[in-house]
């Protein structure tokens, strides 16, 4: 019988690689590719560090005019800024390039991803880790450290854990925003910029105390897109302050469930988008 000839050869002759092994190989190859041009890589990291400093210049300029902004001091705003930009930098490093989805759609690369036995989202994410963004994260961490030294924090074990967990939950929330807004690209191929309002806009917004914003912006970025949980609300708990806008104190401590919920929503939006996708017609 000729039947066995139709069986995929890899299924029989090659030991089936585990999914985890495949992911590790993908990630390793990306990291190796970026680090191989050492001087160029170092320059990229330095440039990213500079970006972080220029971003902080806005906070510096603002506090050259006033002592308090929305009821917060320079050091307190720096704490919020440090938490927010660390989280955003990490998210940008891991999933930031997902806003190139329309490019993958146009070139047909997405179809190649869909043919492989790994998730398309995972392959998109591992297609380009932007390690140079570590330069930006480094600046954020330095600013965060300086702020933590300068502001008066009444350290408790709970606050210490909150400090360690916050950059991670913040990065997860930003990643969910990246994925959910990029999935809109499945419907509107030319409208990638739309996502920027929530990703880069979210980064901008999260670096300042929410007391400066009007109620529409504040509610949207607390209850619809949970950017308030990235830095502002955890910072309130670290500083031992109540939300002047009247959110209960426990809101500062629920970053982890909020991050998990955001992931679920982002996953659903992504799946809906992928189901809507019918190819670029090539």
């Amino acid at each position, binding site marked *: 019988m000729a039947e066995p000839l139709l069986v995929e050869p890899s299924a029989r002759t090659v030991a089936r690689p585990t999914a985890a092994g495949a992911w590790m190989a993908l990630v390793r190859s990306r990291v190796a590719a970026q680090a191989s041009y050492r001087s160029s890589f170092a320059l990229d990291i330095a440039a990213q560090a500079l970006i972080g400093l220029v971003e902080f210049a*806005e906070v510096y*300029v603002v506090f050259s*005019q006033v002592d308090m902004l929305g009821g917060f001091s320079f050091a307190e705003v720096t704490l919020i800024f440090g938490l927010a930009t660390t989280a955003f930098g990490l998210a940008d490093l891991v999933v930031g390039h997902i806003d190139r989805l329309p490019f993958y759609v146009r070139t047909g690369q997405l179809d190649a991803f869909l043919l492989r036995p790994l998730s398309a989202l995972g392959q998109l994410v591992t297609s380009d880790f932007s390690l140079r963004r570590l330069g930006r994260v480094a600046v954020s961490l330095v600013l965060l450290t300086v702020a933590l030294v300068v502001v008066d924090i009444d350290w408790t074990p709970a606050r210490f854990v909150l400090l360690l967990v916050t950059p991670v939950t913040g990065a997860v929330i930003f990643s969910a925003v990246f994925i959910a807004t990029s999935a809109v690209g499945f419907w509107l191929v030319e*409208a*990638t*910029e739309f996502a920027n*309002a929530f990703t880069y806009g979210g980064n901008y917004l999260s670096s300042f105390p929410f007391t400066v914003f009007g109620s529409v912006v504040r509610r949207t970025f607390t209850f619809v897109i949970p950017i308030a949980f990235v830095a502002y609300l955890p910072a309130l708990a670290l500083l031992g302050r109540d939300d002047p806008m009247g959110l209960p104190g426990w809101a500062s401590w629920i970053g982890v469930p909020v991050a998990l919920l955001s992931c679920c929503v982002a996953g659903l939006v992504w799946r809906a988008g992928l189901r809507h996708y019918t190819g670029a017609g090539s």
Partner: protein
Amino acid sequence: MALAGAGFRRWSTYRQAAVAGVFVNTVFGVIKLSILLAVADSAGGTVAGYDRVGLSTYAWMSQGLIAVVVIFAWTELADRIRTGDIAVDLARPVDLQLAWLAADLGRAVWGLLSRAIVPILFGAAIFGFRVPGDAAALLLLPVSVTLAVVVSFACRFMVNLVAFWTTEVRGPVTFYILVAGLLGGHLVPVQLFPAWLQAVAYATPFPAIIQWPIDLVTGQASGWAALGIVAAQLGWAVALLAVGRVVLGRATRRLVVQGG
């Protein structure tokens, strides 16, 4: 003129992108203005000569200008240099720099119509807007915005020419956007800077791209000061275009030596 028309038509085909762009500009405008208004509140109502309406006017003008003077990444020329298509451009019987400038002015008109007007109208309706009361400033405004596009183009042209030497321009372009945006007064008005940073900013051409045209509208500059602004913009435009030509000359000689 024909090249400017082509530039306009080319960009006007991306309508979906324009709608998304207007949305993003508007969201960022609200965030920026919220921060500035909080600064004014802390400072007791006015800061560096700006009251609340003045800050709103500044914020929406600066958001509106984004697409006109291209505050963000522009690597078209660098892309053509990297791919070698620049050789075709150089062989054409028109001046390379002026041809690109003409196309850029056409793009700027489309940017003005598609992305500037809506955010400015939105901001004016919700947060208030000060129409310039000074006749001189009002008359000079179109000239000033045009010169801002020329100065911006001259800068971007040079940054893109870096591609003749390095091929990869992502780093220089990103650096340019950040420094030009900050020192040009795109995030915070230059008047709010501490004295030393103001001195640095005014030593660069970047305020000529963003802050100065806005000053004509907010009333920070009027009468002779308005005329001074336009004269300074003209000076920067001529000087930077001239330097760009020198750099281009050196770059193309190098290109020929390498056999392009």
